[in-house]
C-alpha cells in the first residue's frame, strides 16, 4: 500500500488512522500507553491524598488558605474547550478537510498555551507566598502531581505543533493520519487528568 497516495474526500476511508497495519498498531499501542499513564497518575494522586496538608509542625499553608477557585475554574474551562477543539480537528480529518483540521488544531494549541501561562502564573504566585517545592511534603506532592500534568501539556503542545508544521504542505496521507489521531488522544487524556486534578486537588481542597 502506498502510504503517500493522495486521497479525495470520496476515497478517504472512514477510519484513516486504522487502515494500515502501522496505524492499527499505533492506535492500540497508544491506548495501552494511556492505560499505563493512568496508573502513573493514580500513584501521584494517591501520594497527594496521603500527604495533603502535611508539613513541618506549625505549617501555615493548607489547601483552604492557598487555592482560589476562580482562577482554576478559568483554567479548567480553557482546557476543556481545547479538548472540544481537538475533537473538531478529528472530525475534519474524517471528512478529509485538511485546512479545517489544521485550523482547529492551531486553536487547540493556543488554548493549551493559555492554560500553561495561567498555570505558571499560579505556581509563581504560590512560590512568592513561600509555598515552594521544598517547603513541605504537601508542597512536594502538590507541585509533583500538578507539575507532571503541566509537563504533559508541554509535551502535547510541542507534539501537535510539530505535526501542524511538518504536514502543512503535504495534506493527508495514511502515514500521518495515525499520528494526528494519537496526538489528539493524548490531548484528551491530559484533559481527563485535569478534570480529576480540579476535583481532587482544588474542589476537595477548598470545599471538602
Amino acid at each position, binding site marked *: 500500500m502506498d502510504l503517500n497516495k493522495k486521497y479525495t474526500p470520496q476515497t478517504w476511508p472512514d477510519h484513516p488512522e486504522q487502515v494500515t497495519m502501522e496505524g492499527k498498531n499505533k492506535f492500540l499501542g497508544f491506548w495501552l*500507553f494511556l492505560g*499505563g499513564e493512568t496508573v502513573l497518575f493514580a500513584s*501521584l494522586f*494517591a501520594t497527594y491524598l496521603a500527604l495533603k496538608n502535611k508539613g*513541618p509542625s506549625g505549617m501555615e499553608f493548607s489547601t483552604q488558605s492557598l487555592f482560589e477557585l476562580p482562577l482554576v475554574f478559568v483554567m479548567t474551562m480553557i482546557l476543556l474547550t481545547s479538548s472540544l477543539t481537538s475533537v473538531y480537528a478529528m472530525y475534519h480529518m474524517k471528512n478529509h478537510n485538511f485546512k479545517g483540521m489544521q485550523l482547529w488544531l492551531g486553536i487547540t494549541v493556543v488554548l493549551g498555551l493559555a492554560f500553561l501561562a495561567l498555570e505558571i502564573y499560579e505556581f509563581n504566585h504560590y512560590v512568592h507566598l513561600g509555598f515552594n517545592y521544598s517547603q513541605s511534603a504537601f508542597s512536594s*506532592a502538590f507541585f509533583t502531581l500538578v507539575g507532571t500534568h503541566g509537563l504533559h501539556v508541554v509535551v502535547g503542545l510541542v507534539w501537535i505543533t510539530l505535526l501542524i508544521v511538518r504536514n502543512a504542505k503535504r495534506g493527508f496521507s495514511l*502515514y500521518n493520519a495515525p499520528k494526528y489521531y494519537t496526538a489528539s488522544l493524548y490531548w484528551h487524556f491530559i484533559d481527563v487528568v485535569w478534570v480529576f486534578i480540579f476535583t481532587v486537588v482544588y474542589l476537595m481542597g477548598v470545599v471538602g
Partner: protein
Amino acid sequence: MSSIAQKKGFGATLWDYLTTVDHKKIAVMYLIAGGLFFVIGGIEAMLIRIQLAKPDNDFVSAGLFNEIITMHGTTMIFLAAMPILFGFMNAVMPLQIGARDVAFPFLNSLGFWLFLFGGLFLNLSWFMGGAPDAGWTSYASLSLASPGHGIDFYAIGLQIAGAGTYIGGINFLVTIINMRAPGMTYMRMPLFTWTTFVASALILFAFPPLTIGLFFLILDRMFGGNFFDHTMGGNTIIWEHLFWIFGHPEVYILILPAFGIFSEIFTIFSRKRLFGYSSMVFATVLIGFLGFMVWAHHMFTVGLGPTANAIFAVATMAIAVPTGMKIFNWLLTMWGGSIKVTTPMLYALGFIPSFVAGGVTGVMQGAAPLDYQLHDSYFIVAHFHYVIVGGVVLAILAAVHLYWPLMFNQMLSERLGKWTFWFFFIGFHLTFFIQHFLGLMGMPRRVFTFRADQGWDLFNLISSVGAAFMAIGVIILVYNIIVTAVRNVPVGNDPWEDGRTLEWAIPQPVPFYNFRQTPLVRGLDPFWIEKQEGNKEGMTYAEPLSDIHMPNNSFIPFVMTVGLFIAGFGALYHGEKDWALPVLILGFAITFSSMAVRSLKDDHGFHIHKEDLMNEKGGK
C-alpha cells in the same frame, strides 16, 4: 539478497547490531547483555557466600557487604532475569504467532538500549564512589540516609532500565493482539505466547508505580523533595506501598514466562498436547490478576492493622489455587506421554518439586501471624530463592538449551548440558534448602557476619559449598557454549524433531523476514498437525508469495538512550557540581531532539520483492 550469506567486516557487523530493529538480533543482544549481568550478579552471590562461609569472617567489610547484597538482588531481578526472558520472548514469540516482526521494531530496539544503558549506569556506581547499599527494596527510611551517590545510581539506573521494560511490555501486547497469523485465535496461542501476553500486561500496570516511587526518591535525594521525610510531613510507607505494588507483580512478570517455557518443554518432550490447555490459560490470567491484589503481604509487619493483613493473607493464599492447577496439568501432560529426557526436560522435571517447595513456604508466609516470626529471616531468603532460582532460573537455563538451535542454528552439547543441570540443581538445593532452617533458628537476612557460638556455622558452610556447585554448573554451560560455537555444526529444521508450534516450522537458519508466506493455523500445535498429516513443505500457507514489507534500521534509539544516560549524570550531581545542570539539559536535549527527528523524518520501510524471494528459494 540473503543477509546470512554476506560476509561482513567487524565494523559493519557492529553497526548492524547498533541499528538493528530485527527481533531476532535484538533477542541475541538481550541474551548476551542479560547473560553478562547474570555473571556479574553471580559473582556477587559468590562473594556473599564466601563471606558467610565461616563465623566472624572479615573477607569483606560490613559496608561493602551491604553494597554487594543490594547489587546482587537488583542486578539479578532487573538486569539478568527479566532481560534474558525478554530475549526469549523476542526470539520466540513473533515466530510462535507467525508474525513478520514485533509491532514496533523501532521501540523494540529502543527498549533494549534503555535496559542496557540503565544497567551500565547502575553498575558504574562501583567505580564512582560506591554502589547502592539499602537492599534491592531500597526502603526510603534507609535509603534517604545513605551517604554518597549509591542510591542515586540505583534510582536513576532503574528509571532508565524500567522505561525500556515498559516499552517492551506495550510492544509485546500489541504484537500479540494485532499480528497473529490467520487462524491463530487466542485459544490456539502457545502457552509461552500466552504467558508473554499476561506478563506484558503486568509490566504495563506495574511499572508506572515503580517509576513514580523512583521519581520521589530522586526528587527527595537530589531536588529538595519531601515525600519520605517525616520531619517535613512526609511518609516513608508510601515508598513501601509503591515499591511492592510494582514488586509483587514483578514476581509474576518473571515466573509466568518461566511457566510458559516449561509448558512448551513438557509438551514437546512428552510428545503429547498440553493437558488442560484452557485451564492453563485461565490459570495464567488469574495469577496475573491476583498478582496485583497481594502486595501488602510484604508489609505484614509494618502495622497496617489486622483487617488489611487478613485480606491480603487470604488473597495471597488464593494464588496457590491457579498455580496448583498448573502443576497438576504439567504432571498430567507427562502422564502416558512418550517422554524423552533431554536437557530441557531435565530442568522441567527438576522445576516441579523445587517450585512446589517454594510455593509451600510462600503460603506459610501468607499466614500473617507466622510471617511475624519469619519476617526478615533467612527463611524468606530461602523462600524467594526457591521460586526465583527454582522457577525462573531453571526455566532460563532450560530455554537456553531448548531455543539455542532456533536462535543460533547450533545444538548445545546434551552431555555437557546434563552436567550443568546436575551441578546446578544439586548446588541449588544444597545452598537454599538449609537456609530455611537457618531462618527458623533465628538468623536474620542481610547480616554481614555471625558469631561462632550460635550453632549456625555448619549450615552456613553447607550453603556456601552449594553455591560453589552452582558456579561450576554455570562454568560448564559457558564452556558448552564456547565449544558449540567453535564446532559450528548447523542443525537444520525442527532440531528437537518433536516441535509442535510454529517456531519449529520455520526453515533454519531463520530468514530475517521470518516466514516467507504467512502460515495458516489450523489448530492448537499447528506444526504438529501438519506433520501428522504428512505435509512435507512444513506448513500450509495463508497467502500466495508476495512482496514483504520490512522496517528500516535506525540509529536513533541508541542516540536517544545515550541522551538519557548523559542526563542521568546531570541529575546525579545536581546541586553538587556546577556542570550538573548543563549536562542534565544537554542529555534531555539529545533525547528530545532525537524524538523530534524520528517524528519529522518519514520512515516507510522497504519491500523485499517477490522475485528476490523466489530466487532465494531457487538458490537453495
